[in-house]
């Protein structure tokens, strides 16, 4: 049997019991409203309102208690009943390849983690190159950027003048390289994991959205994280170097050969029923 409604077996054969129409709600509401309106007009209005309220409540309760509030409503004539629902003529298409869906694990294939690591290293190098370029062009010299970065940990840098910050410092080189290297690796790894789950254009995510987020984050953090850098950083260059990183890493990751993710699990009955 496909139909929702049973075959009609004659009009008015069955009926449903429903609450009967009743004026009490309207009168009760009117009572409440008048009682309120009396406060801004005349107390007589409130008086009338409260009387109405009491009467309506009494009527309402009596209706409930006496069970007089119900009526039997017979079923409407068959023409006015819903037609049974028929199976649709239209076919439902099966999933095509490339269509994400619950019947597949999405994504089917992912980049290997090593790609993320490689991407991070390449991106980090590209970023360092940009920073050096900045040092040269701005006239601060090549050591300036790394000293600024190192100031994050080397607190004594806080008192240094800009000229001092332009000088070479072995400690700063070491610290700066470690910070830079680690962050680059971590971000690269994130790229490797997240990029394939994002729809399509890995370069949009990796080259644009990622750097945007990251720059915003550092912008927010910088004052707390690295006041020295904060006071001196050239945000436009900083921004550019983030993009260079994003694009380089994104490229490396996106070009790596994908490996299959875990095998699609056959749809077991259990897992399926959970879906609904």
């Amino acid at each position: 049997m496909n139909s929702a409604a049973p075959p009609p077996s004659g009009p008015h054969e069955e009926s449903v019991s429903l609450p009967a129409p009743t004026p009490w709600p309207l009168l009760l509401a009117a009572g409440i409203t008048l009682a309120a309106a009396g406060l801004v007009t005349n107390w007589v209005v409130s008086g009338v309102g409260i009387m109405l309220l009491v009467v309506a409540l009494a009527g309402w309760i009596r209706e409930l208690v006496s069970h007089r509030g119900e009526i039997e409503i017979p079923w409407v004539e068959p023409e006015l009943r819903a037609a049974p629902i028929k199976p649709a003529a239209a076919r439902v298409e099966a999933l095509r390849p490339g269509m994400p869906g619950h019947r597949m694990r999405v994504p089917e294939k992912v980049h290997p983690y090593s790609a993320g690591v490689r991407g991070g290293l390449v991106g980090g190098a590209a970023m360092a190159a940009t920073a050096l370029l900045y040092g040269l062009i701005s006239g601060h010299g090549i050591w300036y950027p790394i000293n600024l970065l190192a100031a994050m940990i080397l607190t004594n840098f806080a008192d240094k003048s800009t000229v001092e910050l332009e000088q070479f410092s072995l400690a700063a080189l070491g610290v700066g390289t470690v910070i830079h290297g680690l962050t680059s690796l971590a971000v690269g790894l994130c790229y490797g994991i997240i990029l394939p789950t994002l729809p399509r254009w890995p370069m949009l995510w990796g080259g644009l959205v990622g750097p945007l987020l990251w720059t915003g984050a550092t912008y927010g953090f910088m004052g707390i994280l690295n006041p020295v850098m904060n006071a001196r950083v050239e945000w436009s260059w900083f921004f550019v170097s983030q993009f260079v990183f994003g694009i380089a890493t994104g490229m490396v990751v996106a070009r790596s050969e994908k490996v299959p993710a875990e095998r699609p699990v056959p749809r077991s009955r259990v897992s399926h029923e959970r879906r609904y």
Partner: protein
Amino acid sequence: MNAGSLANRSERRRAAAEFGLGAHDAPRIGMLAFLCSEAAFFATLIIAYLTYLGQADVGPTPGEILSLGLAGANTVVLLSSSVTLWWASQAMTAGRTRSACSGLIVTILLGSLFLAGTAYEWRELIDARGLTISTNLFGTTYYTLVGCHAFHVTLGVLAMLVLAGLLASRALSAGASRGFELVEWYWHFVDGVWIAVFLVVYVWGR
């Protein structure tokens, strides 16, 4: 081909029983929801009370004029009314209409006694101590909070009067009555609110 046949028998039976109005737990859910909203209402008033506690720039202060003894006695009265109502409802379920009726009447009396106690307290405060709603922030918040509670007690008393009337006129048959049960819930809730009010206003606030 599948739909009808797969709707198994027990499901059909449940359909017959539950489908339509008056599924058995609707009134209870409704009452619970209503009590939740009431709780939010009183929480707001209590927050206002606490916000202004000790903020009044002119006296009298709660410590000066609130009598813990009177309020304590009132509390005992109201709490015992919850007990009598519970007893009445037990009687009701057991089908002992007479006892239920008398339990209800005792509860109504206790509730009224509580209201009388509040009225007495207010008269003292207004006449003897000169505290009105417009005297200071304490008066403002105190009368509002306690007044709103008293209003709810009044509603409860009226509802129980109606119930008692219905019971007496046999319009309400014994056995578990949904109306009775809900009024009982309401009454216990109002008592619970009083405990909060009592603690905040008379114990902590003094």
